[in-house]
Structures are given as structure tokens and as C-alpha cells.
């Protein structure tokens, strides 16, 4: 499928893809909590008003309604900002959706600090952790418009509850076309043997930029890996890149606890311990500013990733050991 060739926001891809799903499948319904223009679910609402339910500022009600709709055979897509989806309505998602294993897709926009001006109250930096820790819930964070489009379309095929995180700002193109599939959810975007830069969401294009600067300035060959499915994470693909480079930096617009970094570290700790450093939010909340200024402020930049990579390389073990036991992952396809 021909994708978007210029920068676009992942939330816009969600809005467009949701309309396509609505056209293809009569059982698709959408809910929003008075943020449908921001989340882009309003496009679905305009196309299918009878299948669109704006609940107003009542996120808990929205999630439990989505449970009821799914239990009665519908395929609900529930959208609001990431903070309200996962923070306010955690218990409703937990019991009504995840515990029941219902095919509700929680499509949250404005994840991270890049939403900017609204500040800490709205900048959700714990959502990946919250959804990752919840049994039965899978977590998808697309890297650009085209991958977000694919993630939305493919979500219909899954009968499981899913959390999809979208963002506010336009994101440079990472995938030139809408990919055929998310595959394992782990894509090597650039090959390299010195260090792995493992990124998700808005940090993926920044990791690609970081790799270029590392090569240009220091001759470092960085491998760039996009993790779009953080849970369940595809261990073999992660082990493959860790084995190749022996050191990694993870990058996410999220707390460095509970998100991508921990997912990668968990795989490594069990099967191939190597130094893994994290770029992300420390033990602090966001602040107001333009989205880009916020990213700069917290070091969520290509520069931030490259600097961390240089530090990491100092600690890269001189001798790399293969895993002592575990699956024969090196020969995995």
C-alpha cells in the first residue's frame, strides 16, 4: 500500500485507518471521551454516526461501555489521551477488558511529553508500563504514520485486548510505505555491529539520526531497531541484535521504568546479559513548553541517544560471550 511520503502524526493515521476499518467491518464501533478531534476518532464519527459514541468527559464509563459492547459481539475502538485512558480508567480496563479477554482496542493518543504545552497533567509517561504489567494486554507503539496505519488495520485481526499508543506531533517518515505487516514487532532499520539502538515510537526516527551522527563523527556502526510491539516482545529478535553488538541503548518517550528499556533488559538478563542503557524519562514529571522543547529538555533527542551510546561503548565488554543456555536463537530466521 502506498503510504504517506511526508511527515504525519501517528494519531492521524489512526483516524484514517479507523474509517477504513469501519467501511470494511460492520461490527466496528468507536468511543471517545470528548477528545475525538484530537484523537482523530471524529473522522469515524462523521462517517458512521450511529456506530460512534462520544461519552463526554467520562473515561471510566467509556471503558466499561466498551466491555459491554464487546461482550455483545462488537469490536470497540476506545480513544482518549493516554493519561486518561490508562491512568483514570485502569480498573475498568483491567476487569472489564483485559480480564475478560475481550477484543477492545484502546487507542490512546498524546502519549509522552511531545504533546507539549498542556504540561505534566496531560503528559503520560507511565502508560506503557501500566498496560505492559496488565495480564492479557498487548502493547503496540508505532514509529510513524505509515506504521501506525498498519497497526490500526491489523488490530482488527486480533481477538485480544490491545493498547495502541499514538502521538500528537507530525513524525518524519520511517517507513516509506505502509508496511505489509508489523511482523514480529521488531524491525532492524539499519544494520551495524558496534552498538544496538533499540527505540520505539517517536524515538525511532531520532535513533536513526543518532546512528548517522555516530557514523559521521566517530565512525561507529550503530544498528537501529524499531520495537513496535513492546508486549509480547519478540525475544529472539532482541537477542539477535544484542548478540551481534554486545551493548545497547534503548530510547522511549516514557519512564525508563516499566517500558521498552525494562522489556529489553528482561530478555537480556535471562538469556544474554550485556550492558543496556536507557534514554527516557527519569523519576520526574513533564513540564509545559512546545513539544520539541519538552523533548529537548528531557534529552529525548538524537543527540541524547548518541551521547548515551558513546558512554555505553566505553562500558562494552571487550570479550562478548554467547549465551550459556537457552534456545538456539542465533539460527532463528
Amino acid at each position, binding site marked *: 500500500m502506498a503510504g504517506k511520503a511526508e511527515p504525519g502524526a501517528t494519531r492521524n493515521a489512526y483516524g484514517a485507518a479507523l474509517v477504513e476499518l469501519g467501511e470494511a467491518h460492520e461490527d466496528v*464501533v468507536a468511543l471517545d471521551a470528548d477528545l475525538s478531534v484530537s484523537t482523530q476518532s471524529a473522522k469515524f464519527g462523521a462517517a458512521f454516526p*450511529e*456506530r460512534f*459514541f462520544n*461519552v*463526554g468527559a*467520562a473515561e*471510566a*464509563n467509556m*471503558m*466499561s*461501555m*466498551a*466491555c*459491554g*459492547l*464487546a*461482550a*455483545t*459481539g*462488537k469490536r*470497540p475502538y476506545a480513544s482518549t489521551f493516554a493519561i486518561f485512558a490508562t491512568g483514570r480508567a485502569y*480498573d*475498568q480496563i483491567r*476487569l*472489564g477488558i483485559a*480480564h*475478560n*479477554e475481550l477484543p477492545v482496542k484502546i487507542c490512546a493518543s498524546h502519549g509522552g511529553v511531545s504533546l507539549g504545552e498542556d504540561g505534566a497533567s496531560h503528559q503520560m509517561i507511565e502508560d506503557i508500563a501500566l498496560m505492559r504489567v496488565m495480564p492479557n494486554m498487548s502493547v503496540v507503539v508505532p514509529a510513524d504514520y505509515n506504521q501506525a496505519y498498519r497497526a490500526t488495520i491489523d488490530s482488527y485481526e486480533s481477538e485480544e485486548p490491545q493498547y495502541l499508543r499514538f502521538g500528537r506531533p507530525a513524525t518524519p517518515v520511517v517507513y516509506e510505505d505502509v508496511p505489509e505487516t508489523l511482523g514480529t514487532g521488531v524491525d532492524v532499520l539499519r544494520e551495524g555491529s558496534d552498538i544496538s539502538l533499540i527505540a520505539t515510537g517517536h524515538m525511532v526516527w531520532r535513533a536513526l539520526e543518532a546512528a548517522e551522527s555516530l557514523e559521521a563523527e566517530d565512525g561507529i556502526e550503530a544498528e537501529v531497531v524499531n520495537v513496535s510491539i513492546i508486549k509480547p516482545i519478540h525475544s529472539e529478535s532482541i537477542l539477535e541484535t544484542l548478540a551481534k553488538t554486545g551493548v545497547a541503548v534503548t530510547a522511549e518517550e516514557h519512564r525508563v521504568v516499566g517500558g521498552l528499556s525494562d522489556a529489553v533488559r528482561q530478555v537480556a538478563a535471562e538469556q544474554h546479559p550485556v550492558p543496556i542503557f536507557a534514554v527516557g524519562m527519569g523519576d520526574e514529571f513533564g513540564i509545559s513548553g512546545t513539544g520539541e522543547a519538552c523533548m529537548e529538555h528531557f534529552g529525548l533527542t538524537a543527540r541524547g541517544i548518541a551521547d548515551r551510546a558513546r558512554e555505553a561503548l566505553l562500558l562494552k565488554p571487550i570479550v562478548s560471550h554467547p549465551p550459556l543456555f537457552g534456545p538456539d536463537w542465533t539460527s532463528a530466521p
Partner: protein
Amino acid sequence: MSRLRSVPDPHPPSKELARGEIEPTIAELERWATVHRLDCVRMLAVAKSGHLDSSLSAADIVSALYNRVLRHDPENPAWHERDRFVLCKGHAAPIQYAALAHHGYFPHEDLQGLRKIGAPLQGHPDMNKTAGVEVSTGSLGQGLSMCVGIGLALRLDGLEDTAQVFGVLSDGDCQEGQTWEAATAAVHFGLRNITAIVDYNHLQTDGTTEQVMDIGDMRAKFEAFGWDSIQIDGHDMEAIVEALERSRTLDRPAAIIAQTKKGRGVSFMEGRFGFHGKPPSPEQAVEALEELEARLEEQTAALQQEAE
């Protein structure tokens, strides 16, 4: 302990009854309420855990629903055109389990396994483990929102006038803010296939609702939210059936505030504080069973006399 063994009622409901082809009398519904209460006492005495008094206060409402009002098919629980029953007050699970077993959704002996490891009957209703449970509940405040979602889905499927969603709420449900989000939404979306029955028994874990957090005039509150709202005696079977049947015919969501007594049917427990979430001791169980068995005997005899 054989007294604690749950056995199927020798006068069970027929399949025609579940399908609504036969209407049981008020006296039959009252008798089945006693049957369900007995099963609740036995279940809890064996489980040594659970919410007995909360189950007993809802027994008459549940008997009216499962044995007369609900259109359902125990042989085909997934029949799409059925009415839906949501136990918003999920802690009263035993009373729903008693009714489901009564209709053959699962073997009667499964009641013995309540809250036991590996058994299908969980502490709170679980849609994936127990046949006949529409949605899992147990976290107060979520149930009415689930009913709204179910009601909307049924409307999209063109079943709004035939399939009704009945939610049974507790006082605690009405203390949760989410219930009022749902009450607002049901009216906003113009649903007329929702019936909320509040099992208003005025007792909660820490004391009376008036002491802990007074929810006041529930009838007036639902009315103020735009619902058709009536108040009844939640142990008057005739009034319960009439209110439930009437709720199907309305052009608005319907609230039925059922004034009830917690522990109803077991004298030492009825309307008394201190039994929430506490299983009966062996002595209490025997006392409760004796009282309920005596009532059942009277009710059975009266029905037989009438038949002759």
C-alpha cells in the same frame, strides 16, 4: 455435612418457562427464592467464604428475573436475542450461581466448589469461567456502564425492543461516581432497553449506608438523571414482577429502587450489621437452613394443596 450438599430442586423450572412460554405464579417464584436462598447458605457454609447477606437481599429480585422475566435459553447461553442479566454487585455472586444452576447452566454439584481452587465458580462472576455470566463484575460502579454498552450493541443489532438489559446494583454501586456517568449516558443515548434494579439494603461493609456515606433518595436521584424511576418493596414478589415487566415497555431507561433487607429470610441476619463478607459459622448455617427449610416445606405444601 450432607445437609450442606446442594441438590437440585425436585420442582425445577421447565424449559418452556425459561423461554417465556409458561408463566409461573407469584407463589412459585417465592418458593424458588427460598430454594435459591437455601443454596446460598449451603454454598457459603461449604466455601467458608463469601457474601451471604448481600446474596439473600437480592434473592427475590433474582428469582423474579431468572424464573419469570428474563428471556433466556440455558441450552444455548449464547442465543443472541436473549435478555441480559448483569450482576453489578458482583459480590452477590452466590445468588446468581444458585439461579444459573437451577436452570441447568452448569451441574448443580458445581455449587459445592464455590471459591475453591480450580473450580468454575469464582468469588465474583467470571464470564469466561461460568456459563450464563454475561460480563465479569466485582469492582463496584462498573456494571451499569457495561449495561449501557450491551444496550447499545443490542440496539445496533435491531434488538432494542425485544432484548432488555437488567442490571442489579448495590448501595455501594451507587456510591461510585461511575454509576452516575452511566446513568447520564443511558439517557443521552436514548436507551430504552435498560433496567437498573437497586438492591437498596442500607448496609455496607463498615456500617449502615446512612452512617458511612448516605446515598439518600435513590428514586429521586435516578429521576433527576432522566430515568423512569420507581420505588418498591424488594421482597414483595408481585411488586417486583410488575415493576420488571413494566420496565420493558418504557421509552426511557428504568430504575427500580428495591427497598430490601440484607440477609432477608434468615432471622438472625436480617437487617443486621456485621455479616457483610462473613460466611456463616457451622451453627449459624444450621440455624439458617432450619428456618429456610421450614419455609420451603410450607411453600411446597401450599403449592401442592393449590394444585389439588
